[in-house]
């Protein structure tokens, strides 16, 4: 290469150095433990203290949980069994309450002979969200996902299948209106028309239509009232509906808040601020108590439906703010490039802006969803029997009077599994999108 220093630093290597293992003290578990736990005297102390605390907690908790009794009909029987096996002083869990009230915790007071319906609905639900969550599932399966809400409603509540079909037809009607009106009327007018026509249809035609179709071909399941539903089924219904509905609504609100159109902008801002500024529990009481005053007397507007609407509105305000953050994070150049190519507003949003903004917003959106899902337990205050509500009901029975921890641990664990999987999915999605786009 360079011969500048040839005289002063002459050197020719005659043997090549073989590749060697790093010294034992610099590799593997030893190095890790040394670096992360015992690197300084302070860290040594902290490690020892932490280990002691962890040991203390686990040494009480683990035996309590592991030695727990699974087979008993009441708390009293549980205690008898405990006295027999471990002696009267032992503190052990009585998991029997969960095995004995398992069905109730899952389904509430759903008729036992119809348990197959929520179970089937849950399986169908898993099949329906798979293509939404994972791009590797064939895209054609999305049609099933679109139809699933109507099928699931029918399975859970029963009644005539024609009801949900007639409602679904309204959405199809809206899509048709949108498709044929957009070229003739322009985007905004077409959107308004595509909202108005289905609404008109739902309020006038869809009921009689469903009735008529049912008279010809009856496809009926036994009706189950919302009041009979409870437990994790209720939490799932409210949580999943809230999640599925609040995302699109939140996106629309975020776009509205960004809009240059004065009225749309101000309406979105007011909606978001009002909904977000009032505690959810107040909205739930509004749903359960106040709403009846505003509705025409005699209308029986399902309480669960009212709760779903309130939960949806509440979390959509949060989603809107999260998505707004994503929109604001996009460089202005992306908007300009989309404009410069001649894409109209809706196309540039759908194809350019939202895919990127939503990708940025994933952690915030999932965060909101996790919050929403846990907040479904608040419905206990308006008398719905969610898992917490059921735990009160179970405790009220003479058999299980006085049992607290086991139920709360179980409910907490179930919620944790749901929320933790949502969090993991969010990480998976972020990683996948980052890998794809770089």
């Amino acid at each position, binding site marked *: 290469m360079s011969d500048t220093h040839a005289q002063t630093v002459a050197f020719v290597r005659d043997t090549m150095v073989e590749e060697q293992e790093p010294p034992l003290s610099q590799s593997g578990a030893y190095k890790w433990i040394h670096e992360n736990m015992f690197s300084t005297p302070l860290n040594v102390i902290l490690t020892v203290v932490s280990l002691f605390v962890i040991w203390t907690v686990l040494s009480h908790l683990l035996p309590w949980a592991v030695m727990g009794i699974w087979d008993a009909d009441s708390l009293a029987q549980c205690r008898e069994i405990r006295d027999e096996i471990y002696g009267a002083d032992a503190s052990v869990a009585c998991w029997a309450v969960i095995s004995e009230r398992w069905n109730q915790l899952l389904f509430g007071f759903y008729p036992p002979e119809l348990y197959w319906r929520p179970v089937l609905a849950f399986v169908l639900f898993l099949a329906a969200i798979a293509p939404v969550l994972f791009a590797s599932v064939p895209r054609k399966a999305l049609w099933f996902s679109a139809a699933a809400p109507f099928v699931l409603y029918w399975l859970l509540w029963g009644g005539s299948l024609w009801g949900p079909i007639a409602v679904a037809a309204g959405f199809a009607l809206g899509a048709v209106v949108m498709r044929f009106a957009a070229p003739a009327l322009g985007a905004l007018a077409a959107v308004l028309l595509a909202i108005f026509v289905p609404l008109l249809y739902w309020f006038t035609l869809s009921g009689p239509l469903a009735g008529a179709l049912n008279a010809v071909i009856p496809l009926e399941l036994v009706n189950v009232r919302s009041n009979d539903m409870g437990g994790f089924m209720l939490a799932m219904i409210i949580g999943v509906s809230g999640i599925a509905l609040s995302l699109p609504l939140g996106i629309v609100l975020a776009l509205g808040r960004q809009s240059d159109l004065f009225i749309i902008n101000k309406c979105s801002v007011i909606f978001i601020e009002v909904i977000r500024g009032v505690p959810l529990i107040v909205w739930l009481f509004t749903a359960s108590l106040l709403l009846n005053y505003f509705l025409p007397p005699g209308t029986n507007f399902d309480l669960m439906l009212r709760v779903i609407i309130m939960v949806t509105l509440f979390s959509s305000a949060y989603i809107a703010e999260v998505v707004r953050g994503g929109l604001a994070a996009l*460089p202005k150049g992306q908007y300009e490039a989309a404009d410069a190519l001649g894409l*109209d507003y809706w196309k540039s949003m759908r194809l*350019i802006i939202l895919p990127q903004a939503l990708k940025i917003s994933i952690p915030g959106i999932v965060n909101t969803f996790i919050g929403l899902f846990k907040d479904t337990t608040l419905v206990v205050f308006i008398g719905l029997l969610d898992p917490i509500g059921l735990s009160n009901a179970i405790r009220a029975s003479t058999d299980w009077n006085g049992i607290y921890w086991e139920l709360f641990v179980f409910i907490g664990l179930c919620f944790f599994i749901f929320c933790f999987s949502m969090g993991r999915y969010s990480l998976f999605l972020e990683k996948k999108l980052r890998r794809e786009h770089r």
Partner: protein
Amino acid sequence: MQQQATETVDRSQMTVSDEVAIQITKMNKWYGNFHVLRDIDLTVHRGERIVIAGPSGSGKSTMIRCINRLEEHQAGKIVVDGTELGSDLKNIDKIRSEVGMVFQHFNLFPHLTILENCTLAPIWVRKVPKKEAEATAMHFLEKVKIPEQAHKYPGQLSGGQQQRVAIARSLCMKPRIMLFDEPTSALDPEMIKEVLDTMVSLAEEGMTMLCVTHEMGFAQAVANRVIFMDAGQIVEQNEPKAFFNNPQHERTKLFLSQILGH
């Protein structure tokens, strides 16, 4: 400066017709109370290659951004390809699909592959079938000499390659006019050449071009007119030779002495 581009330019197709492509009359623009563009009068004929130079803040970018309505003008008239730019959204979208634009920071869509970047607008705006749009996109990617990158994402490309993709993306809409807003300002010297070469070959094919740029070599080689702007107005315009060798206005002389002086 990039002088090497000068020698090899093929001028056979560079013909200016009498047809007017862009007509700007008495255009004024304000940002709040700040008067950014003052009485701009400019007529661009089909086939012209115009380089717009000037100090930063002189309004050159703002002027060409008015042509496809990325910026709104408050007074005066802009007619592009016979369509007047007003508040009518239909007209704006029509003009935007006829006028290609290349930005300083490329502004490729990072979530789409190179090919998807190029086919998106033809498919969704021009309603071209996907197969056909892809064939066109590959044609233009070959023209900018990066067909092998078609299935990568913009983040995997160098700045120069990204800018060439941005040019190809605009060309896929088969525009009649191309606007370049400082296309080489964000690039390394090595990459500037590859982008300028692409622009030169576009000019050789007779594209109507308006370039805001500091590349005076490019101006001398390709432009048929150089416009100098300062303080929101057109101070001087001339053909390149006269512009560089014999500037008239004091401000132009100062500007040229500063950018060519070292």
